[in-house]
């Protein structure tokens, strides 16, 4: 057996089970919730999301590209109008801004995909369709000899259903 899937009907039962699993050093634990809850964040205490790095890099790259394409094309085919400068940063700020938003937002989405490891082709192991409905859940992976202890722990905290998965 590869691990166990536990269902919880109540949020506080789930959170106390997560905290105990951490104390008992079960490290490969995946928590499922139909909606984001801060109580779960506090129980899991995960590292901060790294999405912001993708956002910053994308936004800076987008703004740079926006200014660059506008300035470069103006210099490449110079049109002399009243002796004014070819490259004119004030109107080009609009292009730079739009490109900053476009590339920044798309790289934010790409960051979420990379860090969440989606798109995922196979998602049947360690999951239950009820986790997108009304149930909270935990998927615990560990050595087979440790799994009975994990099962006893989640049952103690009020798991409504526990099943093993190969």
């Amino acid at each position, binding site marked *: 057996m590869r691990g166990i899937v536990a269902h919880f009907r109540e949020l506080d039962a789930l959170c106390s089970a997560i905290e105990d699993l951490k104390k008992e050093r079960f490290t490969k634990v995946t928590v499922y919730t139909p909606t*984001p809850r801060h109580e779960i964040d506090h129980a899991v205490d995960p590292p901060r999301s790294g999405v912001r790095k993708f956002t910053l890099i994308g936004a800076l790259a987008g703004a740079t590209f926006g200014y660059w394409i506008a300035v470069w094309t103006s210099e490449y085919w110079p049109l002399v109008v009243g002796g004014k400068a070819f490259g004119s940063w004030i109107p080009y700020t609009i292009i730079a801004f739009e490109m900053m938003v476009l590339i920044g937002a798309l790289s934010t989405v790409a960051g979420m995909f990379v860090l969440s490891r989606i798109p995922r082709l196979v998602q049947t192991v360690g999951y239950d369709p009820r986790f997108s409905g009304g149930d909270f859940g935990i998927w615990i992976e560990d050595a087979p000899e440790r799994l009975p202890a994990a099962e006893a722990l989640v049952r103690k905290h009020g798991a409504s259903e526990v099943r093993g998965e190969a």
Partner: protein
Amino acid sequence: MASMADPLPPARPNIPSAGVQLPAVLTYEQVDREIGETLNPTKAWFGGLALAVLCLLIGLGAFTYQLYYGLGVAGYEPPVMWGVYIITFVFWVGIGHAGTLISAILYLFRAGFRTTIYRVSEAMTVFAVMTAGLFPILHTGRPWKAFWLIPYPHWRLIWSNFKSPLVWDVFAISTYLTISTTFLYMGLIPDIAALRDRETNPVRRRVLGVLSMGWRNSEREWRHFTRMYLFLAAFATPLVLSVHSVVSFDFAMALTPGWHTTIFAPYFVAGAIFSGFAMVWTIAIPMRKWFRLQHYITLNQLDATAKVVLLTSMIVGSAYLIEFFIAWYGGVKVEQQYFWNRVFGQWHWAAWIMLTCNMILPLSLFSQQLRRNPTWLFILSLFINLGMWFERFVIVVPGLSHEYEPWQWAGYTPTWVDLGILLGSFGWFFMWFLLFVKQFPVMAISEVKEIIPPRMRNAATAGGGHH
């Protein structure tokens, strides 16, 4: 259902509080069931879709006629070379803005009343911008050459003119469409996963599985998702302000009387939000009745949106008055005559439709009783939609028809082709919208669950929703 809908409000409801706002929605299963039921097509839905497709076909017929005979059939007469197409372009871009305001700006401000209306608003944004984007292309007369606006390497080494407001428009509108679509789709992913998990038809389940990208509701996914959503909202907020500012620059960069003014950007943005909220009412008020969602889109939420409409109406009304004041105070004869001609001359009928619908009728929203009356809000929304289309008419046509010299003074009458394409745009918009509401949930299931207190074993720890 009647007993669940809209319990009697306190005299002064605390509308935007982040606490429990849906007293008649109790469990996650209830949310799944009731929102899921909206996906079953009804006779009214088929009727609406048929009407929308009919309008679209009329528009396509008019467009085909124009393609064959040329842009001359569209009612343009020098000097009025902008007409219904540009007016309708600005109208639809404006409609889109409320969607982003509700989904992004109100998200950043943690305004709880947005939760149950943001999905329809965001979908409305995407379809409105899709509609708006067609009009500059129609207006060019040679739509097959529209790609010239996009900067791409070319054998003649000529690039777009980045100092032109038309090119700014291309960047602003295409970015807006891309980001709005992304924002809508990202918000849909957890809901598509919920539909996938309940679907019994294997083909449909597979399609939903692909669209949900294998989303599993894990804590890890939610952690990155909520960050991503926050940053998308943070990008969409200045974007939405920039888009209508850029649209206003199409006018403000010209020297035409009535157009060349620095007030245009905030004036257009406020007008866009005003008209967009009206369209949200036009869509959401019948929807809450037909889908029996009165306990999700409650009177408190309608009341809160009515306050936004009242505020933006007063901003737009102030802008109308400031335009007049500056024309008088600036002492420029051409400007003064333009504004006089707008309200008391040739275009008085259009200007008074605008002033009545946008400035006078919304003042009724000072009454709490009317703010909480969905029938009145729906009727008012139709007036505001009409008034905001005429606002753009009043900006575009009187300006061009009354420039500096008497030989530049003329009239403008739209032809059946203009009006057919205008009708077709409504058909196009509502067709997409109706198709959307039968394929995807009209409310964000996961976000509605977020504002419902979760089930607790120990009642003492209950409460304290998402913050």
